[in-house]
């Protein structure tokens, strides 16, 4: 769907590099996470796709076509710094933004009503934004972003400022949109908030892409073959011989439950067979790194 190749963007006449040789490929109908700390270059990249600024060099293609003003209509953008007109009614506001995106007035009206039904907010149509609570305004903000049925949805820090209830509601809508064929790019520095939604991620740090790919693959790549184990009714003499054969650490004994971590490259089934002799196995799971951990590892590997 979207292909960015070797994007470079600098500010202050080249003194500050925002993006350096940045390339990603966002497949159609997927949720793509751009993850990285503040100032990594995420917003710069997003503004380039939205044609608010231009890249110094490199190329972006959407469905094979070089990025051009016609694409604007096909993009729904929710910036990090967002808001709406306080003195306008919700209805007028939606029609205005719809028309700015090239919709016919009637079409915008129909689509807005549809969303209002979906989010159960149809009684707000005639209210001014200043009369709505923050949570309500956030829903309107989302409707503004998706009203013109964009094929590409770009959400910059989508859940910042959202309360958990609204955040979940919007998450469900985003997943719905993906299932209906919309491609979604999420950008955030709070990696834990989106990692379970994303199909693909790209990690950005200091204007460079560190790693990208399917979420599963990225995590697999950084897993360290560590297993977390909990046992009860432990036979302590057997435990000693077990410890001599495996690398065991983080031992903790609480409420007659023994828990520890174990690093092993060999077959998990062998470990399990050995464990059965030590005590009753309460839990056994492989420790897959969170995106945060992946990021920290990737950054330290890179530098």
């Amino acid at each position: 769907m979207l292909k960015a190749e070797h994007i470079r963007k600098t500010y202050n006449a080249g003194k500050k590099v925002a993006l350096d040789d940045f390339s990603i490929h966002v497949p159609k109908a997927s949720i793509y996470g751009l993850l990285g700390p503040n100032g990594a270059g995420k917003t710069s990249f997003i503004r380039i796709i939205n044609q608010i600024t231009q890249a110094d060099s490199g190329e972006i293609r959407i469905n094979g076509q070089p990025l051009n003003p016609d694409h604007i209509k096909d993009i729904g953008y929710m910036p990090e710094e967002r808001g709406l007109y306080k003195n306008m009614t919700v209805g007028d506001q939606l029609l205005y933004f719809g028309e700015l995106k090239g919709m016919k007035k009637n079409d915008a009206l129909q689509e807005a009503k549809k969303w209002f039904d979906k989010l159960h907010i149809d009684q707000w149509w005639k209210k001014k934004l200043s009369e709505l609570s923050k949570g309500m305004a956030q829903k309107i903000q989302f409707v503004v972003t998706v009203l013109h049925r964009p094929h590409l949805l770009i959400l910059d820090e989508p859940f910042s400022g959202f309360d958990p209830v609204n955040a979940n509601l919007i998450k469900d809508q985003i997943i719905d949109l993906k299932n209906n064929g919309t491609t979604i790019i999420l950008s955030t520095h709070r990696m834990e908030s989106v990692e379970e939604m994303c199909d693909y991620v790209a990690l950005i740090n200091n204007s460079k892409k560190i790693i990208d790919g399917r979420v599963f693959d990225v995590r697999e790549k950084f897993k360290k073959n560590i297993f977390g184990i909990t046992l009860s009714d432990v036979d302590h003499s057997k435990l000693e011989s077990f410890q001599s054969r495996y690398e065991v650490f983080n031992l903790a004994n609480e409420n007659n439950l023994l828990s520890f971590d174990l690093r092993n490259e060999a077959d998990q089934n062998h470990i399990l067979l050995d464990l059965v002799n030590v005590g009753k196995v309460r839990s056994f799971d492989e420790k897959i790194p969170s995106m945060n951990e992946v990021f920290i590892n990737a950054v330290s590997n890179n530098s």
Partner: protein
Amino acid sequence: MNHIFLITKREFLTQVKKKSFIILTLLAPLLLIGFGSVIGLMFKANESHSIIEVVDKNGLFKNHLKSTDQLKYVFVPTADEKAKMNTLKNNESLDGILILPELQNGNYEQLLSNTRLVINNKIGFDTKQKIVTDINEVIKKEKIKKLGIAENQLDNLDKGFTLKTINVSENNKEDSDLAFGVKSVLSMLLMYVTFMFIIIYGVRVMRSVLEEKNNRVVEIIISSVKPFELMMGKILGVTLVALTQFVVWITMSVIGALVLNTGFSSIPKNMPGGNEAMMSKFDILQMGTQISHSLLELNFPLIIFVFIIFFLLGYIFYSSIYAAIGSAVDNETETQQFTLFAVLPLMVGMYGSFTFMNNPDGPLGFWLSIIPFTSPVAMIARIPYGVPAWQIALSIVLLLGTTIFMIFLAGKIYRVGILMYGNKATLKEIWKWIRG
């Protein structure tokens, strides 16, 4: 183009629908009239009405000291002097007693130096001056009479005249003082209207830009439209708001004038000046016809054309500066140091224009009405007096060019400025945005 239209429409509708706009538009003329009446009343309330009793020991002044609305002379018999003096202190209806001593050996100087005004409270400076002038006038006439000149001969000496000026470049038209006065009033009026509108509505453009920035709505909009379209839509929207207000006010004044028209002839009677009582109704009517005559003699199509051109170009020129200012700062208090750049040139133009009354075609008038920063107000101030066509053309070309350049410049500042949150730009940074 469609985007600019949508933005203009939104800007216009939201501003016009605001309660404050409706109230201000409807009430401003009433407020203005009310304010004017209050000031008028204040002047009237402060006018003193003094009653002075006069003890005239010669009978020289009787029938010559003339009472007016503000100062009333009451002649009392000389015999009552003592009794009057005794009661003066407690007499609130009386302001003072003027004692004019006897004339001895025709020595008027001695009479004057012995004249006394006894008062029971403070007396206004104006009233005192008036008494002095009145006495002097009587003495002067007496002295002249002594010289053997008859009163009507005397009146003959005092006759003034008006110098008739004929302008060869305007079909040998007579250029009377009255016509010049009419032009001056028209010139000041048009200039002041332009000045006020540019400032009031320029600031409105700035506020509107700031509002979008503060609402954080701006990035959403410019992901759909170009920053330049947003800026132009805003300026045009506010222009329409200004024109709407203009039309409402003109309609209201016309209706007001029609309603008040019946009472028109009574208005000049209240004019201050002293001798209005002498002015007959005929004079007023004649003056009215002369004013309308001089008005009709003006080249109105040209004046209207120049007014519209300079008003709109000047307004767009300054609005784009205001839009750029709005985009470069974060809140209204920060705008102050920058708005100086937009207000100062206009002020120079306006105060400079006051000198046009003396010499509309002088070098100051020429340069102020040619330089684009001041020409919107200065050319409008000059136009009723008549301006050579080449100067108008040159000024329009320069103003148009600078306006386009200013929009371009403002667009560059605006494009970067609206996405800068949280820090006020310095002039150095703005210069970087313009170059970048």
